[in-house]
């Protein structure tokens, strides 16, 4: 029997206790009525209920409006466990692409005046300078000791090699480095896989997009972020590549063994978990943070490659064009954070899988420039559709442990998507709508088509309706480089 949702209030739906055996808290899904229906059909709601059985879970098992079925945890799921009460961490609650995320780079360039006439050349040059596609090697091939440095230092490593701008670190979550990363907990295999891949885009739904600011919804945050209508920006979506996949694989195995030995029962083996205070969990954190450092460094290196493409095409320096980093956010991560629960501060392990952190104003972890407005949240649309920049709210802290959506989420499976339109047909369709495209595998392109994804504007409006984040700007794509 399918697990059903009960409406609580506008944009908020509950998965009642008892929907599946062993639920410790209810589920809460943020959605419009249409998105809620889709989530039920997709059986993602059942996964929300399964997550609610995790030991130490606090308040609720949450799901964002772009929720869809995943392995174990749903994509778009948020679950926080109390570290001091035997709360667990689950590698499946982070996912294989550890710290997959997005960064947005703004510029002083205007679409009509500066970039429009040269968009074909720009996309072509970006496609040439950015390594992409399945198994592609990166811009920086690392030795073993350099690999260990990246895992420990995140963006500090490429900066130490003269790659990127110093201030890029400030406008990245965690300031570009998770100090508690421990490379010694990362297996040789993960090292081996990651060493050749720094500065590579990957494949699947990873991409680089040249975008134009279409509409500004709120002036004050837009000013703080340096965004204005008609402006050209660059959005980049990528993750930790092979090193993340291997670390998740390694620790899923370890944690699976420990789950059994501790007598923890989970409804799906992919939800294997272990108390945060257990040694295995501490090792996982050390490795997961290392993968996150790699992912941030990866996007940092890719961003610099993109800046070089702009320099080549426009004959101006990146500084001169104002190609500054607005912010870099992660979608797949578990963080230890302090949150108020029932009136007192608690130390929680917050899993966000396909969900973005959304701190409100004044949060101490924000860069000075954003403390008055809240944390920028970058929401990529699917290929060829609009993306959004949002800002986090105070309210999200009590509603969703400071979390909001991450993107559109899939509406149909990859195989179904390919049946609707072929890669070349899709290319023609997008180009007909004024979007220039560079893709390394035309066959795969159709899997990533816009109709395969949920309508991101509906998702973003639902997050705003639920008080998790607010819209700052909408950006439309004019050039896409895909893996």
């Amino acid at each position, binding site marked *: 029997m399918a697990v059903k949702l009960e409406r609580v209030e506008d944009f908020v739906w509950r998965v009642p206790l008892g929907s599946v055996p062993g639920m410790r808290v209810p589920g809460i899904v943020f959605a419009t009525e249409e998105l809620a229906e889709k989530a039920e059909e997709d059986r993602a709601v059942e996964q929300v209920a399964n997550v609610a059985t995790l030991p130490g879970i606090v308040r609720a098992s949450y799901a964002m409006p772009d929720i869809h079925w995943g*392995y*174990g945890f749903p994509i778009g799921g948020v679950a926080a466990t109390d570290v001091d009460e035997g709360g667990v961490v689950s590698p*499946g609650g982070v*996912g*294989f*692409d550890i710290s997959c995320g997005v960064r947005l780079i703004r510029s002083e360039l205007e679409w009509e005046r500066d970039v429009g006439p040269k968009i074909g050349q720009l996309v072509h040059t970006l496609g040439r300078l950015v390594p992409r596609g*399945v*198994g592609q090697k990166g811009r920086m091939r690392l030795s073993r000791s350099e690999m260990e440095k990246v895992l420990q230092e995140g963006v500090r490593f490429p900066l130490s090699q003269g790659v990127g701008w110093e201030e890029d670190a400030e406008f990245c979550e965690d300031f570009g480095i998770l100090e508690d990363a421990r490379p010694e907990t990362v297996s040789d*295999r993960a090292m*081996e*896989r990651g060493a050749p891949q720094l500065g590579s885009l*990957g*494949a*699947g739904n990873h991409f680089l997009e040249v975008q134009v600011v279409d509409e500004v919804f709120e002036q004050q945050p837009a000013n703080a972020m340096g965004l204005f209508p008609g402006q050209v920006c660059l959005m980049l979506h990528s993750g930790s590549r*092979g090193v993340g*996949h*291997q670390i*998740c*694989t390694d620790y*899923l*195995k370890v944690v*699976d*063994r420990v789950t*059994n030995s501790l007598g923890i029962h989970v409804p*799906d*083996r*992919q939800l*294997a978990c272990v108390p945060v205070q257990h040694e295995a969990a501490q090792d996982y954190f050390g490795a997961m943070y290392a993968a996150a450092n790699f992912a941030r460094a990866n996007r940092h290196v890719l961003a610099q490659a993109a800046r070089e493409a702009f320099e080549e095409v426009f004959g101006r320096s990146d500084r001169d064009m104002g190609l500054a980093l607005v912010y870099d956010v992660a979608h797949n991560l578990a963080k230890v954070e302090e949150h108020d629960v029932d009136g007192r501060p608690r130390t929680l392990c917050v899993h966000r899988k396909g969900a973005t952190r959304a701190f409100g104003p004044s949060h101490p972890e924000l860069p000075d420039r954003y403390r008055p407005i809240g944390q920028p949240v970058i929401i990529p649309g699917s290929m060829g559709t609009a993306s959004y920049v949002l800002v986090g709210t105070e309210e999200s802290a009590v509603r969703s442990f400071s979390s909001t959506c991450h993107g559109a989420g899939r509406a149909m499976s*990859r*195989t179904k998507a*390919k*049946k609707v339109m072929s890669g070349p047909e899709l290319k023609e369709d997008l180009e007909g709508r004024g979007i220039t495209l560079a893709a390394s595998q035309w*066959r*795969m392109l159709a899997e990533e088509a816009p109709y395969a994804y949920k309508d991101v504007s509906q998702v973003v409006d639902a997050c705003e309706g639920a008080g998790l984040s607010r819209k700052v700007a909408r950006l439309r794509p004019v050039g896409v480089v895909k893996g």
Partner: protein
Amino acid sequence: MARGQLRIYLGAAAGVGKTYAMLNEGRRRRDYGEDVVVGFVEPHRRPKTAAQIGDLEVVPRRKIEYRGTTLEEAFAGVAEGLATLLGAWFPEEGTEQRVQVEGEDLEALLATWVDELLYLHEVQDVVFGGFKVEHVSDRGLDGQVRVAPRGERELEGIGVKAATYHQLEVGRDGDGFWFARIYLDV
């Protein structure tokens, strides 16, 4: 809409060449310019049949299920499924390499086996020519994997991140066949 035609190939016994003939016809028509897609193909571990798929477009599956008469056959079948998904299945090519993996139980072993093949594929940059699983128990797997350097080949498969533990199952079905199922994160 025009009427379609359904052609069914019947064979008097297993292995006489139904799939081979159909795929052969498919490739011939494709070469004439017809749009040919393979919806589902089960090569039954017959290399000549698998070779007939050639470069016809196959709709990939993310779930791999295999029924074999032995446990070893089931594990080998899953490996072939993985190689096909990756676009890295080139039957008979390459040289054999010994692979040994361990696991807590048969399911964990299946996941570890798949992860081991993914690691080989990525780090050694190889394609697969054959899988001979010699021995599987709930302690470990011992087998020979035929690998060849990928070289200049552009693989027409999908990127597979890793094996998941979702609905992971290895067991015997009602007919006594060994059954293995695994979901892959792509």
